[in-house]
């Protein structure tokens, strides 16, 4: 693992630069290396899998392999969830493939890495497919997504698809230890265990937690510090909103909702996803209660995808929580 000395964030500092440096994804790196022997034959690629499993790393490593040190001049990195609309994407791709047509050396195309493609709407994907076609002589696409099922068939059929699964816990622990040794930090086994447990196979999250914990105590990361960091970095407001709603204080719950939307700019979808995640973390709910709440959340999540207003749908969801909380209370009282 060659360290990128300039980078301050460890996720960047220890991001593998070449396919050879990538550990643990042997199947994927081997087939990609075959393409690298004759880059002209490389098709469009689609990298699909849960967050923090190495998709971006692989994409950047390919860029390195193809263009060497100057990879940035030949690579366009776009994020579908950040760019405003497919028109922006189209314009940037057009400009890029126009201006970087000369001087690739042996490589007859520029590389376009498009992250979070599954956030794109159907029509946007159709437009993307068209862009892929019109610019295929000058560009290769690497499409990155969490769920390949959310990508329309015509795009899938134009790509070689690679699937990334959740990282193995043991491999993650070893990787964290590796970083800790290089950073001269004593990472205690229980602390590593706790980080891996918390990050659920997301290596990026795990490394960020490790780096943060190491900032607390010079040269040592113990379980206590890790727990402290995890606690401090976990969402709090969403949990507060859910509890207020369940205890029947609708007005207060909605106030918190507006604060979350206002201060952090979360969309309705993001908040619903957070609510779902938090519900499962709440230890005072029974599994049955969690399931019931989940099906309520599902209904409003669905309505939200139908183009409804997020304020109204989230408020309606909180009101349902209030009713749910009251019913639970009444059942206990009856017993």
């Amino acid at each position, binding site marked *: 693992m060659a360290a990128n000395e300039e980078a301050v*964030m460890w996720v*960047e500092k220890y991001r593998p630069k070449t396919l050879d440096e990538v550990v643990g994804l042997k199947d994927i790196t081997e087939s990609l290396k075959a393409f690298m022997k004759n880059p002209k034959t490389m098709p469009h690629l689609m990298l699909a899998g849960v967050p923090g499993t190495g998709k971006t790393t692989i994409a950047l490593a390919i860029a390195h392999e193809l263009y060497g040190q100057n990879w940035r001049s030949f690579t366009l990195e776009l994020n579908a969830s*950040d760019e405003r609309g497919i028109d922006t994407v189209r314009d940037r791709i057009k400009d890029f493939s126009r201006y970087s047509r000369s001087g690739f050396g042996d490589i007859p195309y520029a590389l376009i890495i498009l992250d979070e493609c599954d956030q794109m709407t159907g029509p946007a994907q159709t437009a993307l497919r068209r862009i892929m076609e019109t610019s295929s002589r000058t560009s290769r696409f690497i499409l990155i997504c969490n769920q390949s099922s959310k990508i329309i068939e015509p795009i899938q059929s134009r790509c070689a698809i690679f699937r990334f699964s959740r990282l193995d816990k043991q491999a993650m622990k070893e990787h964290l230890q590796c970083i800790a040794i290089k950073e001269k930090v004593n990472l205690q086994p229980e602390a590593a265990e706790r980080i891996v447990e918390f990050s659920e196979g997301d290596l990026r999250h795990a490394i960020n937690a490790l780096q943060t914990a190491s900032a607390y105590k010079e040269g040592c990361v113990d379980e206590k510090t890790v727990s402290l960091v995890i606690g401090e970095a976990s969402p709090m407001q969403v949990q507060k909103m859910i509890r207020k709603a369940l205890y029947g204080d609708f007005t207060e719950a909605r106030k918190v909702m507006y604060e979350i939307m206002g201060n952090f700019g979360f969309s309705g979808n993001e908040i619903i996803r957070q609510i779902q995640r938090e519900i499962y973390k709440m230890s005072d709910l029974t599994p049955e209660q969690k399931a019931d709440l989940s099906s309520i959340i599902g209904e409003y999540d669905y309505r939200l995808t139908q183009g409804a207003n997020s304020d109204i749908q989230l408020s309606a969801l909180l009101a349902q929580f209030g009713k749910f909380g009251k019913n639970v209370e009444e059942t206990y009282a009856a017993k």
Partner: protein
Amino acid sequence: MQRNDLLWVEKYRPKKIEDIVGNDEAKASFVEWLKNKRHTKKAVLLYGPPGVGKTALVNAAAREFGFTIIEMNASDARSEKAVNAIAKPATSYKALDNFTGETKTSGNILFLDEVDGISGNEDRGGVSAIIEIIQKSLVPIIMAANDPDIDKLRPLKKECVLIRFHQVRIPLIIALLQKICLLERVNAEFEALERIAQNSRGDVRSAVNDLQSLSEATHNLTLQETALLSSRNKDISMDETLHKYFAAKYIVEVQSLLSYSSVDYDDFLLSVSDNLPRRYTNPSELAAAYDYVSKADLYRGRIGTENWHLLKYFFNELAQAAAVNPESFKPFEFISPPIRIITLFWTKGKRNMLNNICGKIGTQCHVSHATAKHDFVPYIKLMLQQKKNSPLIEWFKFNDEEVDHLLKMGRY
């Protein structure tokens, strides 16, 4: 068959000139122009309050005299380009239909409805383009407007014959309503029809609409029921609309209320949502009411800009939300400017700041704003809190304000 399948204003739209009630003088001048003067003075401007029969007269006259109407209204973009594209071929090629000999027509007439709707940047050049068309036109042009005095139409007035329409007199409206009642088998008290007619202030269209919405619930219409009518020609404010909405008991009340109020449906939905917890304090009732509002919101989304036939379901859901438990209704004070707008206004700076921060993280670490927000910001904040002049600041190129924001930021 459902009685409300067809809007009565459509069903009873005048087919002949004589069917149009009132404004006899205006009708006569228009017919005179159409018969004899249209070659000497090419354009005519019909103006007067809404719902008195301007458009109806044009359509009825065209039918009677066999003209083909080429229509544009305010919703068409009336830029010079659009006007030229649509209107010019129609005016410079006389009645192509005649060529085939199949249809018998006295020629084309260009009809520009709601010319006072020309406005804003979109329609720039609209008025001068219309004048140009009038000057070049080979066929007659009819224009209609509600308010001919606005400045931008002044140049048009010189080019046209002006025909003024007045409010239709009450007895004429009553007579029309009686005729419709007979055909629709509605037993209506004379006083009720009188009330509807008076309330319409000479607007025939609105009177017919009122009659239809009131008789939807019953075949016997009494004066008492006309109390549901909201006064016309008066903007009903958001407060007043909300007030009446929460006090409403029937769907027809909500429907009539919202069609007469000038409030925007989206704003109204948000305001209802804001005020719902004040109306229902019982969690079960609140949940039920919110579910209706949520469905109303769904229909609002599906209506979009074209599926207006879904509007009745939207009204229906809204009406249900108001009537979850009529017994518990007590007048209450409304929260008026929507909470959402206030919150979003005050927090705009914070959101922009966070967005910039996430952008900088995204550039360095190859992640989206959303991922930066979830997986990086909480940790970077803690690291900055541990070490004030951390090398992170320089690497990410955070400015002082951004560092300050991160340090003080709460947890979501």
